[in-house]
């Protein structure tokens, strides 16, 4: 059984998802997501561990392509669509540590 959603949970997932939430937003999302999770208790409380999970609706396996080079994107076109580029590359602000 899952524990009820707390404001800290919401703050945690916001950080994981790289979203900033104001205090007011945290309160609102906590209430709204809590309501959805309450509704989801009908599913969460089921004892169905013996049922196979379904990842794909249509049962395909071994969909493969041959190792043959195809058309590549035009670098200029792609870099023109980027917010910022420099020296044939995508430019970003300083990266801190291991995690951006």
């Amino acid at each position: 059984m899952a524990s009820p959603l707390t404001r800290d949970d919401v703050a945690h997932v916001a950080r994981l998802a790289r979203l900033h939430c104001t205090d007011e937003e945290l309160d609102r999302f906590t209430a709204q997501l809590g309501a959805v999770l309450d509704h989801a208790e009908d599913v969460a409380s089921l004892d169905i561990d013996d049922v196979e999970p379904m990842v794909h609706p249509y049962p395909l396996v071994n969909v493969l392509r041959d190792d043959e080079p195809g058309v590549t994107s035009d670098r200029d076109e792609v870099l023109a669509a980027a917010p910022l580029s420099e020296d044939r590359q995508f430019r970003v602000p300083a990266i801190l540590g291991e995690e951006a």
Partner: protein
Amino acid sequence: MTALALAAAVRSGARTATDVLEEHLAVIDRLDGEVAAFNLVTAELARAQAEAVDAAVARGEDPGPLAGVPVALKDNLCTRGIPTTCSSRILEGWRPPYDATVVTRLVAAGALVVGKTNLDEFARGASTENSAFGPTRNPHDPSRVPGGSSGGSAAAVAAGFVPIAVGSDTGGSIRQPAALCGVVGLKPTYGLVSRYGLVAFASSLDQIGPFATTVADAVACLEVMAGHDPLDSTSIPEASPALQGVLADGVDGLRVGVVSELLGEGVAPEVATRTRQAAEALAAAGATVEEVSVPATRLGLSAYYLIAPAEASSNLSRYDGVRFGLRVDAPTTGEMMERTRTEGFGEEVKRRIMLGTYALSAGYYDAYYGKAQRVRTLIARAFAETYADHDVLLSPTSPTTAFAFGAKTDDPMAMYLNDVCTIPTNLAGHAAVSVPYGVGDDGLPIGVQVLAPALGEAVMGRVAAALERSAPTTPPPTLGSRPADATTSGTDTSAEGVR
């Protein structure tokens, strides 16, 4: 005029594609200010395509089954060099360097791409109110929503802007707006139409499908879009099915089940009544009709609102201000990503990202995402049992007719309940179509949904066509009788204009 009639006229040389196109562009130009179905009208692109079709006809070549048919595309389908926004600020200014497979196929079939239609941001919503560019209005009543998320495509067909439009359906995003706008909306079997170039919402649920004014037009469009695509690993490795030929076969001897769980609580009485009338009409046409119980469908809504946000939270991670679209600058990349996403995404998108992130996070995966996937199996099994002695199932498409703007925006759960009838099909990966079936007490359209098992499009089409033949008429929208609303700008058809 239907798409098939237009295509026949263009193929025979009776009309030119250019003439057909200009006629439709003029209507869009005159009336889209009232509807705001389009994010962008691609008049120049369509004119070039029309010229190509006319040149092919002049050379005596086959211009394709949809020759000269104007088509509107939901703005989450990639179009090369043409802005593709998903109605989100975060994709501001992005022009994809490639076309979606369905776009390539439609153009190869002679269709003319007249524009990109509005949607709930990244297809998350059921009203088209969650668009960064403002809402689309229901052509039948401008104070009502068109449904969503493919609200722009549904409204464009309902308003007569285009005979055919393309949308995507993850939990009902084609069928529900089709019902609310009084047009046909078809969600094909998962894997029948390539998702390559469809900006993903929930990858295991998304499917592209057509809107049209008739069942025949809808399946004609589906025939063009369907069929194996090596660029989509989940594409079913079979050729496109032939559907147009079976529509007149009737329903004599078919076994139809009316799903009792989808007719109960929360369904407006008028909607339930129309659904029963539809069932009676099928019985009168020779089908065996009975009410059936598929209890597992009750779990659909919860399973969907765990699976779809989970997949969506991951699919939306790539919007980070690094490679394309919006960037809100900051001293470090981490802060830049957070600011870009915080300012670039709308509230409903954020809500679903957080819900999905939570459902996948350590300690909750088994209870939420994992459990929901097992429920998918239960639903698929329940359907399989039901289809063992039924050819198709019948239900309402949407529990109510079109609701007013703002009626459900503050209560996500109420909004989510709109999808209760459509979601089970997506979870099972099956096919379903919404067919207009008269109006409710408020004079607004009601849709009845025909559900079929995977690759059951042919029998589904037969039943849909039979419903269409028996349906009470839906009065056409009365656009043009009032000035364009001040809150929606007019659409410039002289060139590409972004709203």
